[in-house]
């Protein structure tokens, strides 16, 4: 599992989507993360670790290659914007509504 910086993660995620256009699936997992780098201590030992409250872990995989990144409060705004654009740009293989097809212009201005 490769842990990347937010920007590298987004680049690699783009590559995963491009690779899986003809076959395969892209799986993305999102979970709250408290910053642990050591395993949970066995009972008897006190947990001297102070859990952070402002991070989340994002993982992505195409079945073979795995990537991940940690996003914290400071980065979430920027990351979420880029991430949303990425999802919307790549998840375009789905069916569009046929009746009354009013072509809605996607938001181009930020």
């Amino acid at each position: 599992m490769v842990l990347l910086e937010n920007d590298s993660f987004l680049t690699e995620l783009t590559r995963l989507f491009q690779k899986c256009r003809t076959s395969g699936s892209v799986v993305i997992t999102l979970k709250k993360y408290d910053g642990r780098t050591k395993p949970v201590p066995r009972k008897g030992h006190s947990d001297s670790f102070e859990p952070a409250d402002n991070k989340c872990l994002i993982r992505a995989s195409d079945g073979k290659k795995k990537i991940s990144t940690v996003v914290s409060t400071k980065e979430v705004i920027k990351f979420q914007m880029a991430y949303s654009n990425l999802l919307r740009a790549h998840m375009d293989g789905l069916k569009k509504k046929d009746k009354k097809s009013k072509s809605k212009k996607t938001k181009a201005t930020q």
Partner: protein
Amino acid sequence: MPYFQTWEEFARAAEKLYLTDPMKVRVVLKYRHCDGNLCMKVTDNAVCLQYKTDQAQDVKKIEKLHGKLMRLMVSKETHSGAMETD
């Protein structure tokens, strides 16, 4: 496997489940371009909520819910929707 029929119910149940125990809940998104479908799952390993779609109009909803849950995870607030005033 319990797939929700309406997006509304799924979104509400997902947020509610997350708020009961943020550390336990994970969100999984699976996209298959070759089959043209998208599936979202929210689970705390006891309860499992799923929604799947092949409609382009649902992509935006799923992406928005994803973003909302992401922001909830990084915020220190215990209430959803509250902005950090710090």
